[in-house]
C-alpha cells in the first residue's frame, strides 16, 4: 500500500541536464519495487501549485544513516520541477508512494534488453540491479537528443553486458534513434524480453521492434497525472485487455508498466472507436 510521508531533502546533484534529488522517505524505500514511482507535493501547504509531480524511483537505500532514502531524477521544465531542483539539504518534502505496478521480473536467468530515452533510464536502475542479481544478462540501449540529455551511462556500464548509446545529433555514441540499433542488440544478446522507459513515441517504436522479433516488451509510460493514486482519472490511455477489449485505463494504478503489444500507441490522445463504454455521439461534462 502506498503511504504519505513527510521526507527531507538530503542532497541535490546536477547530472547533465538533470537534477538527482536524494530524499528521506519513511518506509517507501523498503517497499519500492523496480518501475514504481512517487508523487511529490510542490511548494508546501499554501502552494498555488496543487498537483503532485510524479517521478520514477531511481534508487533506494533502506539502510542508510537517515533510515530509508530514495533518489528521483528531475528534468526542469516548469515551475514545479524548478521548485524541486531548488531545494536545499533538510528542506521538507511531502511524498506519496510507492505508486503503480512494478515491472514483472523473470523467474529464470534470461537475456534482457533495456531501452531508455533521456532520463527514462532513471526508472530502469533498480531493474538492472534486480535482473543482474537473478543472473539475467542485461544489455542496455540509452538514447537522447544530445549528450547532456543522456542519463546514467557510466552507472549502466557497471552491471550491463553491453551499453549502446545513441544521440539524435551524434554528440556522443551512434547518431540516430534507439530503434536504429535495437534489432542488432536483440540479435547479438539473444534477447528474451525487452524493458523500456521513455517518451511515448519511443515506447511505441520499441514495442514494434520487440513484436517484430516475437518478443514481449514491458513499457513504463509517462502520462501527466493529477493525483497519482487512482482517483482523478486524468492519466488514462487506451489499452487492450486480456479479453481483447480496449479500455481507458489509468497509468498510475493500472500502469505505469504496460505490455508494449497491449497499448494502442497510435490512439493515445483519442478514445478509439469500440473502446469499452465509448459513446461517440453523446457529450457530457465532468
Amino acid at each position, binding site marked *: 500500500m502506498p503511504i*504519505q510521508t513527510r521526507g527531507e531533502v538530503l542532497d541535490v546533484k546536477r547530472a547533465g541536464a538533470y537534477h538527482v534529488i536524494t530524499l528521506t522517505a519513511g518506509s517507501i524505500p523498503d517497499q519500492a519495487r523496480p518501475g514504481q514511482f512517487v508523487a511529490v507535493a510542490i511548494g508546501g501547504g499554501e502552494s498555488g501549485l496543487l498537483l503532485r509531480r510524479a517521478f520514477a524511483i531511481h534508487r533506494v537505500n533502506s539502510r542508510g544513516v537517515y533510515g530509508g532514502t530514495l533518489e528521483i531524477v528531475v528534468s526542469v521544465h516548469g515551475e514545479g520541477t524548478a521548485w524541486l531542483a531548488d531545494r536545499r539539504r533538510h528542506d521538507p518534502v511531502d511524498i506519496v508512494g510507492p505508486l503503480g505496478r512494478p515491472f514483472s521480473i523473470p523467474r529464470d536467468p534470461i537475456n534482457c534488453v533495456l531501452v531508455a530515452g533521456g532520463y527514462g533510464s532513471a526508472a530502469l536502475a533498480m531493474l538492472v540491479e534486480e535482473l543482474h542479481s537473478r543472473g539475467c544478462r542485461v544489455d542496455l540501449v540509452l538514447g537522447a537528443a544530445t549528450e547532456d540529455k543522456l542519463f546514467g551511462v557510466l552507472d549502466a556500464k557497471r552491471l550491463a553486458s553491453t551499453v549502446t548509446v545513441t544521440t539524435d545529433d551524434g554528440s556522443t555514441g551512434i547518431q540516430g534513434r534507439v530503434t536504429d540499433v535495437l534489432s542488432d542488440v536483440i540479435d547479438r544478446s539473444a534477447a528474451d524480453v525487452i524493458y523500456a522507459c521513455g517518451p511515448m513515441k519511443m515506447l511505441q517504436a520499441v514495442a514494434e521492434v520487440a513484436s517484430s522479433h516475437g518478443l514481449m516488451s514491458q513499457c513504463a509510460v509517462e502520462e501527466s497525472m*493529477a493525483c497519482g*493514486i487512482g*482517483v482523478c482519472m486524468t492519466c488514462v490511455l487506451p489499452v487492450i485487455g486480456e479479453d481483447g477489449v480496449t479500455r481507458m485505463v489509468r497509468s498510475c494504478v493500472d500502469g505505469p508498466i504496460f505490455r508494449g503489444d497491449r497499448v494502442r500507441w497510435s490512439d493515445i*490522445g483519442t478514445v478509439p472507436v469500440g473502446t*469499452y463504454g465509448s*459513446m461517440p455521439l453523446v457529450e457530457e461534462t465532468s
Partner: protein
Amino acid sequence: MTRAVVRQHVPSTPEREPNVDMTAHLASLVIPSPVLTASGCSGFGRELDGFFDITRIGGIVTKSVMWSPRSGRATPRMAETPSGMLNSIGLQGPGVQAFVESDLAWLLERGARAVVSIAGGSVDEYVRVTKFLRDVKGISALEVNISCPNVENRGQVFACDARAASEVMSAVRRAADPAIPVFAKLSPDVTDIVAIADSVVRAGADGLSVINTLLGMVIDTDRMRPALGGITGGLSGPAIRPVAVRCVWQIRQALPDVPILGMGGIRTGLDALQFILAGANAVSVGTSVFNDPSAPLRVHRELAKALEERGFGSLEEAVSFAHRPEGYEYEGEPEE
C-alpha cells in the same frame, strides 16, 4: 442561530480531541463529521482508505454514476491552473450495475457512509439510475449531478435552466427511496444561483450541494491549441473558493432552512469554517485530495480545533453564524 459560549483559550495538544460536537445534519441524514469527500475527487473511496480511515469522516461522495459504462473523453484531461486545475474527464465510469455490485458493495461493506452521485443525459436516464439504486440498502443519500448536457435539448446543461433542473429533481425525488435525502448539485455558471436553488427545492430536492466546477479554458501556448482534449473543462480548487462561499451565502440568505453541503476549494479547517459560517451544514473536500490524500480527515480535525478556539460547543452553533445581525452579542468576538 445559537449564541456561542464564552471563548476560552484552551492550549491544545495534538493528541487531545477538541471538545466540540461535530455532528452534522443534512436533511434526514445525521453524520458524526461534517466533512465529506467531493464527487469526482475520491473515486469510490477505496484508494483513499489507505491514507486515512474513511469511516471516520462524514461520508464518501462517489464519482457520478450513469446508466451505462462510459469511457470518458480523450486526453489531455487535465491542466494545472493558478491554485486550481481544469478537468475534462467526461464521466468515465463503470455504469450503475457494475458500480453497485463492485464499488458500492465494497464501500458499504467497509462501513463508510456512501453518498451516491448520479448523472444522466436525459430525465429518463436519471430516473433509471435512481430506480436501480432504490433496491440497494445502506445508501446514505443521493447527490444529483445536474451539470450534464441534456441530449434531448441541444446539450443545454440541466443545472443552467431552472425548469430542466426542476424536472430532473422532481423525477429523481419521486423515484428514489423516500427514506434517503436527495441533494441537487448546483452549477455556479448561472445568472442567479438563488433562483435555481429555489426551483429545485420546490421541485422536491431535500438539500443542495454548492458548488460544482466553473467552466473554464486554457490554451497551450506551445501547441497554440486548447490544452484539454475536451476543449473546455471544469475549474476547481482554492481558486474558486470565494465564488463558492458567495454562492452558499446567497442561498442561505434566501432559503434559511434548506440543508446545504458546501464545497469549492476547501483545503484547511479554516476554509471549511468559512463555508459553515456562510451557511453550509457540512462540507466536501475535493481537489485538495489530489494534493493531500489525507485532507478530508485533516480538515475535520482542523475544523474541530477552529470551532473550539472560537468558543463553539458544537458545529451546529456555527452554521450560518456569519449571518448574525449587526450588534449581535458574541462574547467570543475580539474587542474593537
